[in-house]
């Protein structure tokens, strides 16, 4: 279980050059905004291709520039929670979650689950993520915390190979953040899925992460457990990032 990758990409004067591996737990990509963290997620999801490199998730090869392999996004089966959640505005909570079941929704032609199975599965997720009562609401009518839970449910309903969260708490008010962190910790346990969390807030890393990969200006500057990094920060930069120094 886990991810291993090496990526090289030059785009608009920015250069990303990273190589790391992570296990099946929760891995935090930590660093300032603009250090290439989100770009890394997009490459894992196949929304952007590296110029050179290789991406492997749970033993499946997603991308390899040398052998010319590039699996399409829709076949990678990675759950992606976008920074502002990217809920489809004209779909209700229920429909948004159901949209995560590509196979078996009545709008796809591939055979799969019957529509009653889909309904059942959606209502399970609605209970699990405490969304009862707002199934028929539209994204603009619900709170930030609820939106985030809808995005999580939608990303997880198809049982993805891994879950990626891009700054999932930045759009939330402080009191809601704690609660949202607990939701993510629970979901991770319930779905037994490797998670990559992108964040620039070290308190989130402390609360949630098993492993940390520290990014700076398109490079990896340190990897290790939270304890490693707190006890032995590699250089002033990391001290200032984590607020330890």
């Amino acid at each position: 279980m886990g991810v291993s990758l090496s990526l090289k990409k030059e785009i608009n004067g920015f250069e990303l050059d990273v190589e790391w591996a992570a296990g099946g737990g929760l891995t935090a990509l930590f660093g300032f905004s603009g250090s290439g963290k989100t770009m890394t997620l997009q490459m894992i999801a196949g929304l952007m291709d590296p110029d050179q490199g290789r991406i492997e998730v749970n033993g499946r090869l997603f991308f390899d520039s040398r052998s010319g392999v590039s699996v399409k996004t829709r076949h990678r089966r990675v759950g992606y929670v976008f920074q502002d959640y990217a809920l489809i505005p004209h779909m209700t909570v229920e429909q948004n979650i159901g949209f995560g079941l590509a196979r078996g929704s009545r709008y796809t032609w591939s055979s799969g689950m019957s529509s009653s199975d889909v309904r059942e599965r959606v209502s399970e997720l609605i209970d699990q993520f405490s969304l009862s009562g707002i199934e028929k609401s539209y994204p603009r009518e619900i709170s930030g915390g609820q939106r985030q839970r809808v995005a999580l449910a939608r990303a997880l309903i198809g049982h993805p190979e891994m879950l990626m969260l891009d700054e999932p708490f930045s759009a939330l008010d402080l009191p809601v953040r704690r609660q949202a962190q607990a939701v993510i910790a629970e979901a991770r346990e319930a779905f037994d899925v490797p998670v990559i969390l992108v964040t620039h807030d070290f308190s989130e890393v402390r609360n949630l992460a098993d492993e940390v990969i520290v990014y700076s200006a398109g490079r990896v500057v340190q990897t290790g457990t939270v304890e490693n990094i707190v006890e032995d920060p590699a250089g002033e930069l990391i001290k200032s990032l984590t607020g330890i120094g």
Partner: protein
Amino acid sequence: MQVAVIATCIVVPVGTTLGYLLARKAFRGRDLADTVLTLPLVLPPTVTGYYLVILFGRNGAIGGPIHDLTGWNVMFTWQAAVLASFVVSMPFMMKTARAAFESVDHRLIDASYTLGHSELITVFRVTIPTARKGLLAGASLAFARALGEFGATLMLAGNIPGRTNTAPLAIYSYAASGDWSSANGLVLLFTMASGLFLYAATKFRGRLV
């Protein structure tokens, strides 16, 4: 009126598809394609009509082979009026569709792909519904333009009573021959119909917001 309705029915799917391709696909000659397809918007209708005559006339690049095969020619038929309306109103649909598609939040489309959906499903379930206001605006503009089409129609379809004289052409004939009472009636009718249509389109769009 029927001519404008038929033309719009063809313009909407074609213009939407072209707008989508122009907005989402980077291909060689994209700007050139956009320019050529937009030309009828800025050219005098007579120039557009002239091109159509050259292309679709009995000896034209497209009209010639059709005539050789079937013995039929589009010129001076009601289909010619539809063709002329289609060509001049298509840019309105294409331009607004392109702008509407370009303004769709790209993350919604990315999200659909990560959830395992194909591009086609994404277009119908995410992209078009999100861009629907712009698409409707484009359709109403295209219809309004098709309704008022005059110059290219006159060139390609002529002005044959009972066959190709659309309302604008009939008004022209009445005025030219001094039949002011018929002209007045038709002008009034035309203005009311167009106004009613625009009003309905605005109302309808307001309800979708």
